[in-house]
């Protein structure tokens, strides 16, 4: 049950604007890889490319599942969700006027996910008791931290093998960010997920990352083999540690 993601020399953008220039990264089975970069450097664009929301202009994106190599470029998000990839989008992107339970059910929209829906819903409520308490409340009426938890729980409703997390720290107080990050680590171990997380909060991200990449102006500026290598790199010092 090995699942990994290989992004090979991908260039992408919006219309005439090129955002990514030949990006290559790998996320191996069971790893948590962090994609570090400040705003506007292409983190979200890369995540959207993997998810099929944006099609890359050049390059290939592979999902390696149990020794099989599946090209994700050219596929739409529906197919990619079916292949076992799920996204916690930036800014949460919940369905604010639907209830918590409806939000969770929509996480399991795909045919494959519907089969296990009762079990996955029970898991979600077990992992996030606050969501069970509020299952009939409108998602938009919850606090930011609860909304982020809901976004994570919703992504897990499709029983994914690969979880993409786009900036879970946006708009949250530091203590809530810590909780969300801790929860992602806990769930990752429980579900044996492969995680790719885009984040600009270095101190939070390294808590769960095995290794990471630093992306600057749409290019991979540094690939750190472990968190120490990342922490020691001049770019991280420059951008995050104030040195």
């Amino acid at each position, binding site marked *: 049950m090995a699942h990994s993601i290989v992004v090979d020399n991908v260039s992408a953008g919006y219309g005439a604007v090129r955002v990514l220039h030949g990006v290559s990264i790998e996320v191996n089975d069971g790893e948590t890889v962090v994609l570090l970069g400040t705003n506007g450097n292409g983190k979200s664009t890369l995540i959207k490319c993997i*998810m099929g*929301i944006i099609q890359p202009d050049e390059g290939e994106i592979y999902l390696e599942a149990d020794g099989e190599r599946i090209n994700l470029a050219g596929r739409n*998000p*529906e197919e*990619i*969700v*079916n292949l076992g990839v799920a*996204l916690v*989008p930036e800014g949460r*992107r*919940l*369905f*604010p*006027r*639907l209830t918590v339970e*409806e939000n969770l*059910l*929509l*996480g399991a*929209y*795909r045919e494959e996910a*519907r089969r296990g829906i009762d079990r996955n819903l029970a898991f979600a409520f077990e992992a996030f008791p606050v969501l069970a308490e509020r299952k009939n409340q409108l998602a938009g009426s919850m606090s930011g931290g609860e909304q982020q938890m809901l976004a994570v729980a*919703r992504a897990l409703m*499709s029983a994914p093998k690969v979880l993409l997390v786009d900036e879970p720290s946006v708009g949250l107080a530091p203590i809530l960010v810590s909780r969300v990050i801790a929860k992602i680590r806990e769930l990752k171990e429980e579900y044996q997920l492969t995680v790719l997380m885009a984040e600009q909060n270095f101190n939070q991200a390294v808590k769960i990352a095995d290794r990471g990449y630093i992306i600057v102006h749409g290019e991979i500026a540094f690939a750190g083999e472990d968190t120490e290598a990342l922490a020691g790199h001049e770019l991280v010092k420059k951008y995050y540690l104030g040195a």
Partner: protein
Amino acid sequence: MNKERKIFLIVAAVLIVGSFLITTHMENRFYYKAAYVVLQYVVLATAWNILGGYTGYVNFGTAAFFAMGAYTAVALIKTWKPPLYVLLVTGGLVSGLLGLGIGYLTLRLRGVFFSIATLALAVVLQMIVSNWDYVGGGAGTAVLKPRSVPMFSNYDEFLFFVMAALAVVSVAIAWLIEKSWIGRGMAAIRDNEEAAECMGVPILKLKLFATTVSGALMGIAGAPFSYFVVYIEPTSAFHLDYAVNSLAMPMIGGTTTWLGPLVGAVLVGTAQQIATVTLSSEMNLLIVGSLLVGFVVFAPDGLVGLFGKVRARFAGKEA
């Protein structure tokens, strides 16, 4: 769920049989005419709501789909005068295809841009029909009703029964959609289309499904129209009333459930019929306009939403 479905089926059957029994007991033809118009709005409002209420795409072109059904029927009547069910099926098919085509053309349009595109569709189609002499062109044409129909004492009673059955069927379709994964996906599109895409909701297919089903139901509602009015011309078939009413009725009733357009169409439609007789036939849009403004300001979730809120408050007090 299954029990709910049974109850719904039984109520639907009772309503259809009931409307047939009415025709065997009631004489006054005015009531059939008035009820036909109200029931026609139940179909139109329900059809509008599948796209506008469930999926969140506001359609200003109801008249286009309705008139497309009506004029498809006129063309068929002029050629070989087939039985009514053929008119209904063909009218539905043509308007459904029109909906599918419009869905494809306007896929990238959202919000007010989609609405303008649908309004333009009605204008363009009216131009085309006005210049199509075979169906009467701009001057219109008279359509002869079949002289008799088995089991009914006259054709107006038969049309009333047909429209009652269509109303029941379209509400049932809306109910089925709402309770299914299709309806759940539509609600996701309405609430946050980008998020729906991220979750793997097939937004393209669902939008096309909504435009097709909504258009088809409007076309079916329009198919018997020429028999009902006897003389059909483009200005009346493409009248703005259809667009305004089919949008206002769900908004007044409530757009997120099957019940909303039904309640809205019955209340507003009946009020309009009463006003036509007691006040003047020009008062209709005035009534709808003031009601719509009132509801948008004071009860944005319509009557159904208002009722839910009141009930929730009561429950809160008791607890």
